């Protein structure tokens, strides 16, 4: 295992690989600064490019995007009081208050360093989980993998909002859409409507851009003006922020580990990680008097956690083939296109690749933080550019990204259809992540179901591993539904 880690380190340091990692980091930084677009849009735009690239470099580029979004989104959270992404909502509370007191640079410095250490701790957690998870994962056969997928989908459906039924409905829609095109079980085309465009099903890039990019694009456009209001100046205190992180290092370590834990659980992800950590911080702090009025701990805790989450999210994605978030689902699909099957065999067949991703995540975090420090002033101005002037670039990127899927005019028509569906889902409060993850897992679930039924019949349901995962699934569903009912009663 150590040999694989060392070999992967040298692969990552190759100039060709580093360039692509830096492209990913650059896109991630830009997308993080522009509120409303989000990391999934950035990853979806780069996804078609990875299909023709070397697998390690392509995946490193996507990891580069994921690694730094929650670092650069701090600019708008701290300086403008607008969450740069779902993972930086809690940073606004104390970060913006600090900026209003002229301590913007201190808040940014503490946030960048906490993010960097969080990201590195996340990568380390992924690394350390490999020998521990190895025995367990390698004992899994198709019935256990099938149940893991079902559990992941149920958790994502139930935990991605306070509407479990909507989540499960979205996951079912994703599984259904994933069956379109040539069947991998029988020799027939399903739901192709006699259109040659649909013989291979709905392209993933078109679906992800339609579900995420088009609705965000439309909502930002309808609001008009620049993406963020006129913000505050960066101010001073760069050194003080670094000293804050050193002074509060146990906080960085604790919240990074919580972030890893949140990342491992499918469905929790970015929207919850920052508030969960902020709440934990407030509950456990001795001095609570300054929270909300500019306490640097209120910046350090959520920022450590939201970067560490990516390392945690990679664990179920790589080892079980169950993506914990929409971003990880895109990474998983890039692997499948490259002929790499995520799951237990990754530990025997592609161990070097896993370590290459670990190194890419760590290096991406360090480089992203360095760029944020060096280019803090120009990056913070990017969010003040009127969206009307960014429109041509974003619009063309979406069109080009979608057209890259099959280079057929049908890509653009499907983009509109998926855009309408995505906007309606967002408008009516349906979670979109379960749909995307269901779509990506559809083929895998169907294949595992087919193999399981043919090999074991219905006896597979009595296997000990299946029973344990099944009990966990039922417990999660029960708790999720009960929590939603309680919230509804309270409202």
């Amino acid at each position, binding site marked *: 295992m150590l040999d694989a880690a060392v070999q992967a380190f040298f692969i990552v340091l190759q100039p060709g690989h580093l360039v692509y990692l830096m492209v990913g980091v650059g896109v991630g930084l830009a997308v993080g600064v522009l509120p409303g677009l989000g990391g999934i849009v950035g990853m979806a735009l780069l996804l078609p490019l990875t299909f023709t690239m070397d697998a390690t470099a392509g995946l490193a580029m996507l990891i580069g995007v994921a690694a730094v979004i929650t670092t650069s989104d701090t600019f708008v959270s701290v300086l403008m009081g607008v969450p740069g992404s779902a993972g930086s909502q809690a940073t606004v509370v104390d970060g913006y208050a600090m900026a209003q007191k002229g301590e913007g640079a201190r808040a940014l410095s503490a946030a960048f360093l906490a993010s960097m250490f969080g990201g590195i701790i996340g990568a380390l957690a992924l690394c350390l989980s490999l020998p521990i998870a190895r025995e367990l994962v390698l004992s899994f056969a198709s019935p256990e993998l099938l149940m893991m997928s079902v559990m992941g989908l149920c958790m994502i459906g139930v935990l991605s909002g306070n509407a479990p039924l909507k989540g499960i409905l979205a996951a079912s829609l994703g599984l259904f859409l994933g069956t379109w095109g040539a*069947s991998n079980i029988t020799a027939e085309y399903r739901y192709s409507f006699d259109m040659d465009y649909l013989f291979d099903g709905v392209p993933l890039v078109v679906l992800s851009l339609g579900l995420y990019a088009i609705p965000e694009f439309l909502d930002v456009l309808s609001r008009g003006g620049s993406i963020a209001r006129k913000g505050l100046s960066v101010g001073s205190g760069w050194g003080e922020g670094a000293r804050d992180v050193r002074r509060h290092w146990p906080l960085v370590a604790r919240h990074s580990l919580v972030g890893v834990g949140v990342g491992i659980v499918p469905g929790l992800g970015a929207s919850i990680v920052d508030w969960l950590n902020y709440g934990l911080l407030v509950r456990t702090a001795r001095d609570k008097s300054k929270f909300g009025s500019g306490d640097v701990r209120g910046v350090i805790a959520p920022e450590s956690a939201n970067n560490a989450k990516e390392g945690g999210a990679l664990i179920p994605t790589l080892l079980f083939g169950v993506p914990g978030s929409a971003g990880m689902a895109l990474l998983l699909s890039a692997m499948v296109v490259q002929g790499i099957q995520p799951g237990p065999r990754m530990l025997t067949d592609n161990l070097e690749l896993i370590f290459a991703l670990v190194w890419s995540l760590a290096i991406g975090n360090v480089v992203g933080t360095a760029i944020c420090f060096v280019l803090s002033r120009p990056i913070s101005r990017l969010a003040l550019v009127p969206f009307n002037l960014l429109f041509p670039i974003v*619009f063309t990127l979406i069109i080009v990204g979608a057209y890259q899927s099959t280079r057929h005019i049908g890509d653009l028509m499907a983009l509109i259809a998926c855009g309408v569906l995505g906007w309606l889902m967002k408008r009516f409060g349906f979670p979109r992540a379960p749909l995307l993850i269901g779509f990506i897992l559809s083929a895998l679930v169907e294949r595992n179901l087919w193999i399981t039924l043919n090999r074991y019949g219905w006896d597979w349901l009595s296997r000990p591993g299946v029973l344990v995962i099944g009990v966990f699934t039922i417990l999660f569903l029960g708790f999720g539904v009960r929590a939603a009912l309680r919230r509804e009663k309270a409202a």
Partner: protein
Amino acid sequence: MTKRERTYHLLFLALLAAIFGYGLVTALGFFPGGRFFPVTATAIGLACCGALALHLFWGAEAGAALDASTKPAEFSYAALFFLAFGFYIAVVYATGFFPATALALLVFLRGYARVGLVASACVTGATLGGTYLFGILLNISWPRGVLSSLV
């Protein structure tokens, strides 16, 4: 939730139920091996649609996703946006990618964003130039349009 909002919600659920219903009926005609999975997925989807509709009929809140819209675009604005998008694709089909995109960007910048003529031309030119270079780099053949084959 207002009565109007509830009606819109129910209409969207009806649309989803129609999609699942079509999927279920069609799936029953597939070969046995390829039937089970789509039937299961669509049946679960239909059941969720029914449960959510009942939930709304009883006057309960439907709940929302964590990434739901806080300030969504108006329905009329969204309809106009998707109509314009559809028109753009029709122009791409007729004239090809570059003329249609140039037209769309100029109409947006001049007509909607009220950007000056020179700035609009510069932004459009730079965007299309960048896209063209990108296309050469990745060896992309852009849609040429049916009209170009008639010329």
